[in-house]
């Protein structure tokens, strides 16, 4: 599903964000990406969703060579991947229902389909009773669930979550974790979760990839956070 071949990315200011990264992730996998600040996690995400082009190497997601996409084709590619951000990025003047519907309007679905799909999603993320609420009326965990709902609304094959629990307390974080696992199992969505949260990684053990200074320093199938002495 996701294949990175000898991928390097350096910026004009001389920063080497990723160096010779090789990575293969199967369809339906749930993978953690861990590493300290500046280790290249964000760059990896931006390469995957087509925001950045690798300096060398190949990034292939769901059969598409992401680095070779023409500018105008990037949006079409992006319909295959959902992205969840730490800071939610919900539109404040739209209700939860409208926020999720927005993702579907933008790709040109008709009203009836949108309404049906949004209801499904609200049920999946357990926000049925908050459909008419505005983001400011929700707690952090609820907002994050709404964001996840928006990201998976158009049934992407890959879901990238960038520190989805970064702003949440442990209890809410576990809730989000369970939601992501549910999506992973029910919709067979491949999930990449970038995180700092060692407790979460230790509690829900999955394949874990550790980045440091642009290198993959560990890729552990059985999971667990890597602690430095």
């Amino acid at each position, binding site marked *: 599903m996701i294949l990175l071949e000898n991928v390097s990315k350096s910026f004009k200011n001389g920063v080497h964000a990723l160096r010779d990264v090789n990575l293969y992730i199967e369809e339906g996998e749930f993978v953690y990406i861990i590493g300290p600040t500046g280790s290249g996690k964000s760059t990896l995400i931006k390469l995957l969703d087509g925001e950045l082009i690798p300096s060398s190497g190949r990034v292939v997601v769901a059969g598409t060579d992401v680095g070779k996409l023409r500018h105008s084709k990037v949006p*079409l590619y992006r319909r295959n991947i959902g992205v969840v951000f730490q800071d939610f990025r919900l539109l404040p003047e739209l209700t939860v229902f409208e926020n999720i519907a927005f993702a579907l309007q*933008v790709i040109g679905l008709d009203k009836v389909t949108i309404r049906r799909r949004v209801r499904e999603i609200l049920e999946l993320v357990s926000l049925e009773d908050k459909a008419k609420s505005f983001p400011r009326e929700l707690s952090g965990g609820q907002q994050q669930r709404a964001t996840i709902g928006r990201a998976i609304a158009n049934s992407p094959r890959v879901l990238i979550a960038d520190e989805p629990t970064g702003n949440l307390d442990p209890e809410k974080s576990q809730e989000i974790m369970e939601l992501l696992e549910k999506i992973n199992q029910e919709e067979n969505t491949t999930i990449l979760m970038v995180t700092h949260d060692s407790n979460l990684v230790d509690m829900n053990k999955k394949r874990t990839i550790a980045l440091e200074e642009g290198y993959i320093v560990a890729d552990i199938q059985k999971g667990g956070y890597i602690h430095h002495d």
Partner: protein
Amino acid sequence: MIQFFKSIPFHIKSAAKSLVRHLVMTLSAASAVMVTLVLLAAFLMIAGNVSGFADHIEDEIRIHVILGENIVSEEQLQETKTEIEAIDGVKEAELSDKENELKLWIAEKGEIFSMYEGENNPLHNAFFVSVTDPDRIAEINDTIIALDFVDDAMYGGNSISTLISMLNTIRSGIIVFVAVLGVLAIFLISNTIKMGIYARTNEIAIMRNVGATNTFIKTPFMIEGMIIGLLGSILPCIGAYFGYAYLYNAMGGQLFSNVFAFQPINPFVFEIIGILIVTGMIVGIFGSFLSTTKYLRWKR
């Protein structure tokens, strides 16, 4: 394509929302368009009339070619006509036979000359030759005089060709000025739309994230630009109509003499109004196209 039309209500809604939200900016951009269009209207009116004057005068100036006494038969006339029309720069040679010449003579000099009508007509057959390029009229006149079957040829004189080239210069000057104004208006609109874009950076980022195509993101801004252009064209259109009608009636439809007759209100003013509206819209769409394209090009 079908998807595009289906999403039009969505676009119009978001364009309208954004226009209302940034009302002050909308009004300032619309007034920039308005000022430009007022000037454009004024210049179109001057240009339209000047070019009307020029056309009018151009029609008036023809070379009057008087043929030799011996050119009388139908055949000879046809031959000379062909020969004159073969000269480079000649548009058409129109026959004015003896009788017609006398009629013109009588009209100009008085009834007394009607005594020459019939067998006594002393005048020769002649042609009225019109030219394609009035600037070359003197040169063509000389060429025609040099022909051996021609007695004489004359035209209005140098003052007329000077006047024509002057009018043409004014016309092209105005076109350049209007083009410069148009560029200015596009620049102003594109700046306004740019502010609108920055106010909605978040929304655009999310749209890109969930896979909205560039066209989809641009469309509401283009509609916004178009509406700004339309808003800006309302007052200039009204002003153009009443202003021109007032001037036309106040001046009695002409400047100094009927050579300088103004273009009639209908359809001239309505043509100008059409041009103003279309220009306003195109300027608006183009302005927002520029800024959205520029903005999106740097985001992937």
